[in-house]
């Protein structure tokens, strides 16, 4: 029996080789994924998972009060799990399918439940005839959808109702993340065809989530005692660990967005170090000069701002351009989380708007400038600085308006149906015990 099976296998293999050899003579060779590219993309996917859990969860967790630590960890974990499922059920198809008449905005349902996506099917990269396994692309993009949706919780941490958040997240993922991802990254997408540059998700991830967080913070309202009671972070070492994991994971996020293990990935990789370093330093010096002390939280906030700013630019600008981008974004975000936030009076608890939306806008516009070959960037066909900056600005504006409108409608809707905010006594008690029935620290 074994011999017979082996014989059949050999026969089939030979037969297939014959068939493909014949096919090759007639048409072009069907591209086969490179093992190096596949490995790199699987590794990058893993790194982005690390960014979400535990990276983002700990970064946020350390910034809230001790009584809300577990609520933040639960929210990040819960959203990651929820979006993962939604992504393979319909998200991937809607984000990267061909939507026909609506293709400028959204994909279709042809790959519902990953129909037709097999270990053999492939996804295109930025190089002709270079492909990666489609399942790798599905998994990589899944992590982007998950982290974007999870980022939003920082805007209204310490007061949102967990059930309402889960419902909102599913809706927001569907009506804001998927269309924006399609418009920016899918062939035929409105911004993609217009030539808006977003290497790893400055608009799709950071502006999108940052705007949703701001709308959420305003609709839900300020935390009880905001501005009167101290709401200092409860564990900054935890925040430092989270920020460090974000930085490490971001190499997968940015360099992985190159989709191939090439020099382009190496450029994105190096930029993810130097822009980040410049962001950390520039925030630190700004704070040192204006407030007298260089704080740890300031340095890690600058680091995250640098990462956000270099995200759309990673594989498109040169290392020196990336450094300038980092030097600009630090002080701008420092102003956004202190001066701007104070003057407008919203309670964006963990500064998702101030760092991700504002930093994302700096990055998106900056990409239009520093992609210029004259400034060390890789350049694009028919590049003019004014034209590209204008295209980038349209991308930013569209994302702000889209995310802002969708978020406002969804927050209001969920609020009407089930209420967004926990009861006052629960908020005072802390969400860990009130909502989740457990406490982070027993002393």
């Amino acid at each position: 029996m074994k011999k017979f099976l082996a014989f059949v296998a050999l026969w089939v293999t030979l037969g297939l080789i014959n068939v493909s050899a014949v096919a090759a003579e007639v048409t072009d060779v069907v591209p086969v994924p490179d093992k190096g590219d596949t490995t790199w993309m699987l590794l990058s996917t893993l790194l982005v998972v690390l960014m979400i859990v535990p990276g983002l969860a700990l970064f946020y967790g350390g910034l809230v009060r001790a009584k809300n630590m577990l609520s933040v960890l639960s929210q990040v974990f819960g959203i990651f799990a929820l979006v993962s499922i939604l992504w393979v059920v319909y998200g991937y198809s809607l984000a990267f399918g061909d939507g026909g008449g609506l293709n400028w905005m959204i994909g279709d349902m042809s790959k519902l439940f990953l129909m037709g996506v097999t270990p053999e099917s492939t996804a295109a990269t930025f190089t002709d005839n270079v492909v990666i396994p489609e399942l790798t692309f599905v998994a990589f993009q899944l992590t982007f959808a998950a982290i974007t949706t999870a980022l939003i919780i920082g805007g209204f941490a310490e007061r949102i109702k967990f059930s309402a958040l889960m419902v909102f997240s599913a809706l927001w993922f569907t009506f804001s993340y998927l269309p924006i991802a399609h418009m920016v990254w899918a062939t035929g997408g409105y911004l993609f065809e217009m030539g808006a540059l977003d290497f790893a998700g400055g608009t799709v991830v950071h502006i999108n989530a940052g705007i949703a967080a701001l709308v959420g913070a305003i609709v839900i309202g300020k935390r009880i005692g905001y501005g009167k009671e101290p709401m200092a972070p409860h564990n900054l070492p935890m925040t430092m660990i989270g920020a460090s994991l974000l930085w490490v994971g971001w190499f997968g996020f940015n360099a992985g967005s190159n989709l191939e293990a090439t020099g382009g990935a190496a450029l994105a990789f190096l930029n993810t170090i130097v822009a980040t370093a410049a962001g950390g330093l520039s925030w630190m010096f700004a704070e040192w000069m204006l407030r007298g002390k260089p704080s740890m939280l300031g340095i890690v906030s600058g680091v995250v701002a640098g990462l956000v700013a270099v995200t759309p630019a990673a594989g498109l600008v040169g290392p020196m351009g990336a450094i300038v981008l980092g030097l600009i974004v630090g002080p701008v975000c420092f102003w956004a989380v202190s001066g701007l936030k104070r003057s407008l009076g919203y309670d964006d608890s963990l500064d998702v708007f101030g760092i991700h939306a504002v930093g994302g806008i700096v990055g998106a516009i900056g990409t239009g400038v520093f992609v210029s070959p004259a400034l060390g960037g890789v350049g694009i066909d028919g590049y003019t600085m004014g034209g590209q900056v204008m295209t980038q600005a349209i991308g930013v504006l569209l994302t702000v308006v889209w995310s802002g409108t969708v978020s406002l409608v969804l927050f209001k809707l969920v609020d009407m149906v089930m209420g967004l905010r926990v009861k006052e006594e629960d908020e005072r008690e802390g969400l860990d015990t009130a909502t989740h029935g457990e406490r982070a620290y027993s002393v």
Partner: protein
Amino acid sequence: MKMVVAIIKPFKLDEVREALSAIGVQGITVTEVKGFGRQKGHTELYRGAEYVVDFLPKVKVEAAVSSDILELTVEAIEKSANTGKIGDGKIFVTNLEQVIRIRTGESGSEAL
């Protein structure tokens, strides 16, 4: 018998303990406390949000001593806890009516 209660700077605790042992104080009780005095608090800044911290961490040392070594005790704490800077703390002395050692039932100065 006297009860001596001293509020001191936390990092001075070891020196105070050594000084008290040296003059024959048999035991002390130590508690981490917070409070304010002339030193006032300080401000903390988190991403530009300013918090005024009114209560500073201190250590409370309690020692029950016989009246004849009271002056030595007070002097020992005063010297060992002194940095010369604002916030060194205070010493409070009160009368102590009774002391009982739980294990043996001894009472009064024998129990000290």
